[in-house]
């Protein structure tokens, strides 16, 4: 396949993100036509339109952008790290750790405060991160970390299931838990933006310059180190940054599957495996995918959650991939 040059690829995906963001701002219970949208963005026009845009739509769009970019970048890192194009951000147990934290807070009736659930989720995700980093610091191999991730996923999954069972009698709490586990960015506020966006931007800023080193790592740790990369340090940086990205995304959007798997994969097929390009392109692609998958959830009330839509898109994609490339 002929690969598009980087500038063109960035421009195409940039436009896609812009379009998705505008659609995300325009569509919803009350549609904002282009003129109202423009006026409201400039702080003019109808007060209702301004309130809808600034207090409801914009935070939701920004959270979607941040979550998608974070999951896209985290997926790229995981796939290069494990030298497996089917690796995903949830592989090391970070998102299931975050899920357990959030579910524990919801089961304890913590949905009242805006910060409780995200904070509990971040705590859970960072506990998982801490466990993984401890192993990585001791120089554990990629296979070792992968198995640790399997163990953590099972452990946190069991905890989450137990809490769901325990709160089954409390209809409201169990409803909230189930909704949270399906992921979503509705009713997000500027506080959510403040919780996720700065950390995600910071982690991305540290991650983007590591593209060249990721290329070397993707062709083997020994080779990378012999060519001049401090592999131990790089591994540690990569695990830290990708888990922080996943943790923050999970904290504000719940469990959103498949974005971190599908987007880097598609970007690699379309634009080649060079991680210097792949990182920014996957961040843009992830942001666009989350915003686009969020759109149908606004019109079909009940049942269709963001995590459901991303899985509906991602599931068939993965099946197609497995058919093309037998394991």
């Amino acid at each position, binding site marked *: 396949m002929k690969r598009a040059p980087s500038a063109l690829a960035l421009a195409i995906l940039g436009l896609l993100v812009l379009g998705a963001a505008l659609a995300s701002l325009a569509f919803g219970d009350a549609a904002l036509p282009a003129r109202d949208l423009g006026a409201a963005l400039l702080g003019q026009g109808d007060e209702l339109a301004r309130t809808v845009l600034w207090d409801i739509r914009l935070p939701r769009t920004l959270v979607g952008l941040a979550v998608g970019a974070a999951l896209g970048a985290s997926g790229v890192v995981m796939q*290069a790290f494990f*030298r*497996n*194009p089917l690796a995903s951000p949830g592989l090391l147990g970070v998102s299931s750790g975050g899920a357990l934290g959030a579910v524990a807070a919801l089961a304890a009736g913590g949905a009242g405060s805006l910060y409780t659930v995200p904070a509990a989720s971040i705590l859970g995700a960072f506990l998982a991160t801490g466990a993984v980093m401890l192993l990585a610091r001791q120089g554990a191999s990629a296979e070792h970390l992968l198995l640790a991730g399997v163990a953590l996923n099972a452990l946190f999954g069991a905890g989450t299931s137990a809490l769901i069972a325990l709160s089954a009698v409390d209809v409201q709490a169990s409803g909230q838990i189930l909704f949270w586990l399906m992921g979503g960015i509705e009713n997000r506020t500027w506080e959510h933006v403040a919780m996720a966006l700065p950390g995600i931007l910071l982690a991305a800023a540290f991650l983007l310059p590591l593209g*060249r080193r990721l*290329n*070397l790592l*993707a*062709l*083997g740790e*020994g*080779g990378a*180190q*012999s*060519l*001049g*990369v*401090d592999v131990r340090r790089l591994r540690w940086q990569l695990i830290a940054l990708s888990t922080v990205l996943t943790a923050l995304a999970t904290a504000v959007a719940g469990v959103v599957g498949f974005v971190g798997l599908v987007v880097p994969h598609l970007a*690699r097929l379309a634009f*080649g*495996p*060079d991680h210097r390009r792949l990182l920014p392109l996957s961040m843009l692609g992830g942001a666009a995918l989350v915003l686009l998958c969020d759109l149908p959830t606004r019109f079909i009330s009940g049942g269709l959650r963001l995590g459901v839509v991303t899985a509906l898109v991602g599931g068939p994609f993965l099946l197609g991939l497995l058919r093309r490339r037998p394991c």
Partner: protein
Amino acid sequence: MLRAEALSVPGRLAGVDLAVGAGEVVAVLGPNGAGKSTLLSALAGLLPCEGRIQWSGRDLPRIPFLERGRMLAWLGQESPADFAFPVREVVAQGRYAWNDDDHGVEATLEALDITHLAGRAITQLSGGERRRVFLARALATGAPVQLWDEPASSLDVRHALEVYALARKLADHGHALLVSLHDIRAAYRFSRALVLDRGRLVADGEPHAVLTADLLRSVFRIEARFVTSLVPELPEPPCA
């Protein structure tokens, strides 16, 4: 240029002393599991080990990673192809420590006879072609010390001969090379041979002097006879 004293890796390598100077091209021989790859990885600083390793008179742990990439190149036994990087990009990775992507890359592609593959993805190559790509990456570093772990595995006879000729030529230009191989006959083309057996260095010297029938019997448990027979040679000096 490369020196090791009492180099040990628990369970795999025991108290190896060796020194390789500029202009030497050294064959590393031994049966499976004798410690050839372990020795090369340890010398390259890729394995935790005991003892002392010096590159150009400097203790290895004191040399910053980036500088290591300019001083010594290591070709591992594997030629990974999990991602579809184009051949030219893989070879250019050899310049990472110099931060000058394309320097000498074309000449290296030429030397390994892979110029015609430069635009192909490594995932589409045969095992032997991929081997030459990774060898080219090691060569592109321009490092004066080259450690190659079975560079000729999966190469056809002509390309294998070219790799050995290339090794000789690099040595003539003042490089130091340590090359592990299984073809004992090829070792006679080298200036020196090391023989490892169960993690110990059991012979070190000029190939004709050390690779005796007695040694081959005790290390490889084979009966060897020295005969004159068909010896493959390259028709003309290889370009490098």
